Every structure is written in C-alpha cells, then in structure tokens.
C-alpha cells in the first residue's frame, strides 16, 4: 500500500549468492532468497555453516540497533519464545557504504491466514489462545508488540505453534507505539490512543480474528465500533467469538491472560455460547489512576536514565583511553 522510498529499497537489495561478511565478528552469510520487506529493511534467508538463518538488513542502522535491543531483552526472558532468537549483529562494508544487519533464527512456516485457509477455521481459536499466551509474557516483561498482524505471525511445526516475527513495532509500555499497520491499529478505528499498553495488542488480536473471516480486510466506512460490530455479525465463524472480540475492541481486558481464558472457554464449548462477560466500569477507573502515578514516576526515571547513560559513555571513554 505504501510507496517506499526508492533509495531505501535498492540500497540493501542484494542478489542470491551474495556473500555478506561482518566487519566486527567476521561471520559469513550466503544470501539465498528474499523473505520479505517492511518499512525498515529487507529480510533474507541466508546460509551460514550449513545452517539456515534469517538476516535482516537496513541502511537505517538505527532501526537495526533498536530491534536488536528488543531481541536481546527477549532473550533474557526464560522459557518462552517471544521473538526469533538473535544470533549475530554486524555491519557489512561495501563500496556503496555501510549496511547494518542482524541475524536471527529462521522461523519456517506459513503465515497465520495462509495456515487457517489451508487447515480450516477450527485452528483459529487454538492459535489465538497460543498467541495470547505469548503476549501475556511479553506484557509481563514490560513490552507491547505493537505491529501485530497476520503477516508477522508464522505457524511453525509440527506440532503447530504460532510465533511472532518482526519486532520493528515492539515498544516499551507507556511509550508511543513505534510502528503499526492501520487496519490493526486502535487509533485508526478511533477506539483509543497509540500509547503502548497491553490493550493495544489485544485490540490487534481482535482485528486479526476479524481478519480471518475477511482475508482481504475491508476499508473504513463509518470507522467506529458500529462498523466493526456489523462486520463481526455478518460472519458465522466470528459470531462464536463475538463477546471476546467486542471486549477486546473496547479495551475491556486488563491482561492477555484474561482474554485468553475467555477465548479458551469459547473454543472449548461446541455451541459457542456467549460467555464473555461485560466488564465493570470500576476496572477502567483504577487503570486510569495507575496511569497518573506512572507519569509522576517517569520524570524520576528519566533523570536516572540520563545519569546512567552518561556513566556508560564515560566508561566507553575510559575504555578508549586504555587501548
């Protein structure tokens, strides 16, 4: 949909067979094919010592660094696979200039919509429950995925397991969402802000559910809850999840776990009785209060952070003096 900056695309477009050698760590990667591209770079399938890896490169070194930061922080979360695991970060020097890249585990499989189209809608509930499980631990660790959409969800296996790829939109909770796609964005539908909170991701999950029944998506008409409600009611396969979808669209869930439990109940029940309850208003009020407190705290954190960073820079300086 979006027209890309031509210079960005062409600069890091490389042909299969190209060997990329890192400037710092001296690892070599042979490009095999392009896996996809986004606003911030291109992802390739590459081979390194007979191992298949995914390699993302961008002439915007900042976005690479930023994504690497997220993946590194994910790696610290034990026992869960939040994103692809990070294998290497480096720069590739070539005549035309330097290109930053990082290498990660290659997650193989169809994307969510292709998988459901292939295997049937009975998989929808299970996969969404899996996804909500991952989101819960992501949120618990202070992150919000941000750019949640079927393209970023791969079903690996067997046994089938949903995995998230592309952490370009992953944002620290409380900050402004870094990257999003309109159809799945709460702000686009006028149903909330673009501040990173768990509800932002849960809204996107609801839109993904809707998306499974409308693989081609649809455009904004009235662009509000009414339109989305109408779209849900027009599809038999969505009616089953109507309660959960509407709750998530309106931000009634405080956590992914809460949504997961209701989703699980619905998926288990054959008839799909509506058992998603409407949530009390009191919940929203208490959350707003928490938000005010957070703002107060943030200025203190800022100061600490700045001091910390200067200390780090100072050590880099000292380190430089030593060599």
């Amino acid at each position, binding site marked *: 949909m979006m027209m890309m*900056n031509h210079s960005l695309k062409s600069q890091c477009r490389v042909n299969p067979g190209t060997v990329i050698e890192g400037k710092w760590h001296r690892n070599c990667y042979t490009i095999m094919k392009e896996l996809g591209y986004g606003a911030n770079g291109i992802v390739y399938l590459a081979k390194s010592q007979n191992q298949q890896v995914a390699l993302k490169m961008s002439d915007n070194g900042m976005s690479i660094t930023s994504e690497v930061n997220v993946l590194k922080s994910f790696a610290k979360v034990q026992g869960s696979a939040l994103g692809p695991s990070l294998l290497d970060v480096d*720069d590739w020097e070539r005549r035309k200039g330097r290109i930053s890249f990082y290498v990660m585990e290659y997650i193989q499989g169809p994307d969510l919509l292709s998988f459901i189209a292939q295997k049937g809608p009975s998989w929808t509930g299970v996969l969404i429950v899996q996804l909500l499980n991952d989101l819960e631990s992501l949120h618990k660790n202070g992150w919000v995925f941000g750019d949640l959409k079927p393209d970023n969800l791969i079903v690996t296996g067997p046994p089938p397991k949903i995995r998230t790829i592309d952490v370009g939109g992953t944002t620290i909770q409380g900050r*402004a969402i870094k990257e999003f796609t309109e159809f799945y964005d709460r702000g*686009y539908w006028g149903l909330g802000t673009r501040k990173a909170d768990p509800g932002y991701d849960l809204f996107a999950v609801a839109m993904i559910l809707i998306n499974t029944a409308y693989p081609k998506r649809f455009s904004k008409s009235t662009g509000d809850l009414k339109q989305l409600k109408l779209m849900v009611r027009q599809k038999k396969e969505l009616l089953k999840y109507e309660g959960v979808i509407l709750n998530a669209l309106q931000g009634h869930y405080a956590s992914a776990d809460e949504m997961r439990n209701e989703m699980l109940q619905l998926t288990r029940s054959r008839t799909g009785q509506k058992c998603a309850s409407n949530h009390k208003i009191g919940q929203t009020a208490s959350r707003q209060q928490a938000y005010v407190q957070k703002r107060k705290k943030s200025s203190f954190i800022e100061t600490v*952070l*700045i*001091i910390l*960073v*200067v200390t780090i820079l100072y050590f880099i300086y000292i380190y430089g003096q030593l060599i």
Partner: protein
Amino acid sequence: MKTGTLKQILLITDGCSNQGEDPIAMAALAKEQEITVNVIGVMEHDVIDEQGMNEIEGIALSGGGVSQVVYAQALSQTVQMVTRKAMTQTLQGVVNKELQQILGGSKTMEDLPPEQRGEVMEVVDELGETVELEVLVLVDTSASMKHKLPTVKEALLDLSLSLNARSGDNRFSVFVFPGKKKDVEKLLDWTPKLESLTSIFSKLTTGGITPTGPAIREALTYFKKKRSLRSLLSRDDDESFFEESV
C-alpha cells in the same frame, strides 16, 4: 527534566513551486536555524514529474529532513512515519555530537561496535519519547491539491494522535500557501491538539500559484527564538558528567 525543543516544518505538496525564492535555498536557511524541513509529495491520479520529484528530495535534503512521495490513501501512515523518522534523525545528530566530544575525532554512533551502539540507541529512543516537539504544517493549496485536502486533514488528525501518545509535549500549527493576501496564511496557531483544525480546513480556497520558497521563509518567522539543540542534552547531562569526572 526539562529538555529543548525539536522544530520541524512539514511541507505537504503535489508539485513544483513556480514563484519566488528557490525553496531548496529556503530549506537550507531553515536548517541553519535548527529547523528541520520534511516534505511529503501527494499523488492521486496524477503523477509528480521529475522536476517536482527533484525539488521534493532537494528540499528535504537541504532542510535536513525526510521526504516521501505517496498516493493519497497512504498519507496518514506516511505523515507520522516521516515525522518520527526525522525526529530520530535529528536526535541521532545531537547524540553524535556529544559522542564526538567524549570520544574525540569524527566518531559517530555507527563507528561504535554493535554492542555499544545499543546503549546509545536507548538514549535516542528515550529522547524521542520525551522531547518537546513543534511541527509547523505547511500545506500547498494550489488548484491541483483541492480534492486531496480532505485526505490531508485526516492525515493531520492521525499525526496528532500518534505524537500525542508520546510523553513529551507537542505543539502544532497549520499554514497554507498561497494565502489570500500574502504568500502564506495562518490557519491554526500553535496548539497541542490538531483536532481544532476540523472546522477551518474546509474553508480553504485554492489558488493557482505555488510559492513554496516564500512560504518556507515566512514559516520560519513563526517559530520562537532560536535555542541551541545542544540544550537537549547538555543542561542536565553536563552537570552529572562533571560530577563524575571530578
């Protein structure tokens, strides 16, 4: 912590200027005053010719900003992306200057090993979230833009939504060119919410000429007095830096 302000002009146009000063020169003038100029070219059924493309890229290049040419339906996403990208770019510049002072020579963030780059990036991210931002939106309302204006309005509301999700303060103002009497006309004075634009934007009449250069020159005068970008970092940091180095 109180930080300095990032200043940006967001120029939305669909073609070449045809009156007054060279807009590329005016963009360079803006950059000298630490005001970044971003340009978005909007197309619908028409295509922007090569001359127009060159001008769009030239303005952003000499204005230290970002340019992008898009079809009208992708405008919302582009406007917020371009603005954020330019912010990061400016902040990276500021941080690089600091790094050069500390590390000496012409070292920038990109010269650091990838491991250390991550830590510096966190500073840039943090600043991007908290820094004060002033965006002066400059909309070309020459005849060919007329039917694109509703889309432009929607994109600006969306921009306000995106930027107001940050914890830093935002101030927006909207100008159109050509104005009724002057080259440029103020539609909306500095405000934190672009939502107040709703009623005015529809009143726009579209003129024939495109005085892009004079519009940028004029727009510069609406920013408050120049304050060094350095103040973004230096005020709090220098203090703590000295404390530690003693």
